């Protein structure tokens, strides 16, 4: 779990991860990922995000290590601001633009699982509906039409907003995309805020469960 100055969901995300596996925080100045099996980049406003969401965080020392980790096939999950950082870093295709409504929106939405055959969604079935909140100002997923076609045909759109629930005007209702190798995944909704029915829903836990299952499957028996 990476912590930038200005991260604000990192404690929530850490708590969510710890429900399923061991997890710890890495400081933005760290270059050593401490032999992590998976990396989560949390939400928030890294370095204040005054320039553009995620635009500065991508240059942080820790992101160099994350890049190497990702390029060697390690699973990286970016949530909200983490998604923005991964797009800025070129580890994920496309970009995130200001919401159509131009306002921050915090709302519970339904997500449909499009591709369950990835490290992040393997605990789900295709068509599963997950209730997970969104909260962001800059979450409208954008990519050129041909790129969107390609993402869809490659199965890189792992999650989309259920019909009528797109909160930000994202192209083709896309809520989360992966790279072509499926080991880097970014999404705007916050699965870490959906791990306990007491606070709304436990559906987001499926993504963490998937990640743990993926890592476990790689371990020698």
């Amino acid at each position, binding site marked *: 779990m990476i912590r930038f100055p200005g991260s604000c969901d990192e404690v929530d995300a850490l708590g969510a991860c710890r429900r399923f596996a061991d997890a710890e925080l890495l400081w933005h100045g760290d270059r050593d990922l401490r032999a992590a099996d998976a990396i989560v980049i949390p939400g928030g406003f890294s370095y204040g995000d005054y320039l553009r969401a995620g635009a500065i965080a991508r240059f942080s020392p820790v992101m160099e290590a994350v890049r190497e980790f990702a390029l060697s096939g390690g699973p990286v999950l970016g949530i909200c601001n983490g998604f923005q950082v991964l797009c800025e870093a070129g580890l994920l295709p496309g970009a995130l633009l200001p919401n159509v409504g131009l306002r*921050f929106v915090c709302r519970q939405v339904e997500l449909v699982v499009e591709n369950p055959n990835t490290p992040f969604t393997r605990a789900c079935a295709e068509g599963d509906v997950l209730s997970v909140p969104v909260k962001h100002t800059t979450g409208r997923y954008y990519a050129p039409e041909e790129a969107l076609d390609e993402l869809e045909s490659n199965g890189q759109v792992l999650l989309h907003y259920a019909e009528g629930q797109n909160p930000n005007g994202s192209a083709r209702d896309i809520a989360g995309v992966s790279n072509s190798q499926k080991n880097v995944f970014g999404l705007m909704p916050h699965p870490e805020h959906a791990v306990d029915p007491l606070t709304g829903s436990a559906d987001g836990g499926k993504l963490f469960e998937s990640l743990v299952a993926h890592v476990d499957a790689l371990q020698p028996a």
Partner: protein
Amino acid sequence: MSPGATDTRHRELGLTDAEYDAIVERLEREPGDLELAVFSLMWSEHCAYKHSKKLLRKLPTQGPRVVMGPGENAGAVDVGDGLAVAFKVESHNHPSAVEPFQGAATGVGGILRDVFAVGARPIAILDSLRFGELDSARSRYLLEHAVAGIGHYGNSIGVATVGGEIYFEGPYEQNCLINAMCLGVAPQDRLTRSAAAGVGNHLVLLGARTGRDGIGGASVLASAELDAEDESKRPSVQIGDPFEESKLLECCLELLDAGLLASLQDLGAAGLSSSSSEMASKGEVGLDIDVSRVPLREADMEPFEIMISESQERMLCVVEPGKLSAVLALCDRWDVRATEIGEVTDTRRLRVFSGDELVGDMPVEALVDDCPLYDLEPEKPSEPIYSPPPRVIEDDASPGQTLLALLGSSNVASKRWAFEQYDSIVGSRTVRRPEGADAAVLTLEPDGGSRALGVSIDGNGRRVACDPYSGAVEAVLECASNLACVGAEPLGLTNCLNFGNPEKPHIAWQLTQAVQGLADACEALGIPVVGGNVSLYNEGGEGPIYPTPVVGMVGEIPDPERVAGVAFLEEGEQIALLGPFRPSLAGSELEKLRGGLSEGLPQADLALHRDHLARVREAVRGGAVSSAHDVSEGGLACALAECCIAGGIGARVDLAPLLARLGTAVTPEIALFGEGPGGVVVSGSLEAMEGLAENSGADWLIRLGEVGGEALELTAGVATLSLPVEEAKTAYEQALPGRFS
């Protein structure tokens, strides 16, 4: 001859001639420019409470759970297991009326600092907002930007905004109200006071550089009426930087955890002047400050500007000499600027140096404790103070039309448009989000746990305008009732008194009556006041605001799993009305829509309400009810409609038993739309309702009908209505967004 007669500098700074003379007497000489600037702020209404201090002594502040009472940056109550909850509400009205985005944002920033200054980690923000009617472009502008500003600060710093309220009334047109409340959790042994201590200890300034923003905010903006030239006061509004504050917050809590600070204080109104002199006053010490060491945004600032700047995101702490290097190292790690700017002395004087030059030397006691206090001269007005609102609905509108109009009226309508712009879930503690229940519910421990807090903030200014005493009593009852609906027992109360110019007898009367009402209600319910804020001079060219005491309360909930929400859940569940509810059209939303503004409200029997609230709380805690919703604006009909809308299910209700209890003076219309404290709508199984009725007697619980169908079908004697839930929902939820494209 009075020196004030020849020298008028002080008048421009808001001091009277007599106050100037008093300063000369304390100093035993004429004040220098810096000294006069510092005195003018310290003796402003905002810092010295000179018109309200005597009155505030009426409020009960003692209670077995109080850990820190009024006077500290925030009050705190004991919540068991070695934990305390600190909370406070504060206004940022005048800055927001001049520049709503930054005004509201820095209002949030300021109240957050108050809470982490006492060592508590902020976990939630609530806002109480007042604007003019939505027909006015200015009101829509203020609303839109204030909401965006609150969201900007709270969302960015990662503290959940979990609740609040918004009212729209003509008298707030020029002078909007932005009150922000924050609560935080601390281990009790980390709770920190602000008294400076230890002669020879270092004074260290933390956080942002000091600039010219917010110079004189407290005296220029907060302690005088607004006028037409307020646009020119924009430079007096501070600019917020939530990223800087986020680092400052984490850094301060780590410093306190490591036991490195002797005391901590935030820099708010009047900046370094008030923070330093208040720390010195509480610690009964003196302070020497060298302004030349203060990191500046603009190099050429005058010493007096440095002393009174209200630049945001700054804290002042006292550090023992042996711990200074550890403090500086920890701040460096968080990338927080830390500068040693002075030291604690035994002189009992605030001495300000610029390098070697002494530029100000003032007795601390004179600055903080000697400000002349004024007796109010209250006089009940013989003429109405406010003109009635414009009529928007005819008396002969059908009950169905009336209910739709009320649901779509700005004060009753859903505030989803606003609260969706706030992050209400960061922190993973939020069990009930805005409008999900009558009070916000947060778990005490992060990631669940078995205990929770209920929080609400309330205050209907128009009802206080109708009757300052009863209106203020009702604000306390309303807030306590919202807590009861989630099973929370109040531990403490904070308030913000928003009033007009107290030098005017009719405003003094409102203020005196309202504070008496608050005091009596708190006393009767056994709820101590642990802190608060007074905002006076809220007047525009067209007169004073409605008198608006805003009450915030924190309560404890033993089991968050049993918290009731607003929504009717299941077909066939029974609906009942609990409590000594005696509705009246006086001060109601319906009266407003009909263009009326009553004088006088029925007086509540506080002992009766105390029992009622305890019973509601126990019913919720015992798991007997599936939903619980307090009857407030728009009366019983609106409360029932809100339960239906939230659950997406209808209800069949007959108010005959209520009419029978209330007697012939209460017409069907009053039963439907009348307002008053002491009514809670609940739903639950037949057995649960029978159980509740058995234990409490027929007077308290009245069965009204059952949940089901797709419409709210409501009968009250000759009045009947049937409103499809979808239609009600559209009116309720589209009213606010419909005003913005």
